[in-house]
């Protein structure tokens, strides 16, 4: 699974004066673990603050896109004293290879950890080859 680069998205906005301004929309790239075994590929991503209703997973035949919106309840008039995290949007995408069975993707979300499992197509799973002794 190769990674495509969609970290930063420049959003064009029209200011009140009618002049076009570019304002970068900061998007967080969630850290992922990706591993493969004989049955397929598993991806796990950290997206703290994201619940199921604020998570989007899109798959087409050659790309997997994961997007999430974190919700952090903040009090009225809160003043930031320290901010390691400066955005609530997560996004990351991956190019998929043809032998994955994208029709049977399984995804689950618990405590902000997304697990996506993409099986390999049955006919592509490795077959053990017996070696005959002569």
């Amino acid at each position, binding site marked *: 699974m190769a990674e495509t680069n969609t970290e930063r998205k420049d959003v064009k906005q029209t200011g009140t004066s009618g002049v076009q301004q570019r304002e970068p929309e900061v998007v967080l790239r969630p850290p992922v*673990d990706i591993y*493969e075994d004989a049955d397929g590929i598993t991806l796990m991503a950290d997206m*703290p603050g994201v619940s199921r209703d604020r998570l989007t997973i899109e798959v087409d035949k050659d790309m997997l896109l994961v997007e999430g919106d*974190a919700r952090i309840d903040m009090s009225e008039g809160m*003043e930031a*004293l320290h901010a390691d995290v400066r955005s609530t949007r997560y996004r990351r995408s991956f190019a998929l290879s043809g032998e994955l069975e994208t029709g049977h993707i399984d995804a689950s979300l618990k405590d902000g950890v997304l697990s996506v499992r993409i099986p390999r197509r049955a006919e592509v799973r490795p077959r053990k080859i017996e070696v005959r002794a002569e």
Partner: protein
Amino acid sequence: MFADLTNFGGGLFDELRRLQDEMEGLYGRWPMPAGIRSVARGTYPPINIGATPEQVDVYLFAAGLDPKTLDISLQQNLLTVSGERQAPVREEANYYRKERFDGPFRRLITLPEDVDPDRVEANYRDGVLEIHIKRREATKPRQIEVK
């Protein structure tokens, strides 16, 4: 423009000192010595701290935590949060990426001095650990009448 006239002479240093005081609470974002407990960027877990006059809120972004491993303690205004986040490597699999933090962590955070250790609440939801600490009521300024 007229306000600046009152700052003739030592005005520059007054401004610097005011900035210094403001930055004091901002954990070393300014090119001055960082808070003695501040850590390198990228330390796990990421933390945000916000404050209102009534309370201080600390957010730790730690997905997949087991709340049973969490230890949160507040001594005067020093908050200590430790725990463990498991993201173990599966032996039989090939890893292409292993970016997620795995193991124990501890963060010590210096909070404003008026936090009240007896009024702390913590909850963990969707991977965010929120700690809310009420602040002691400031003594109200006394009005002084000029006779």
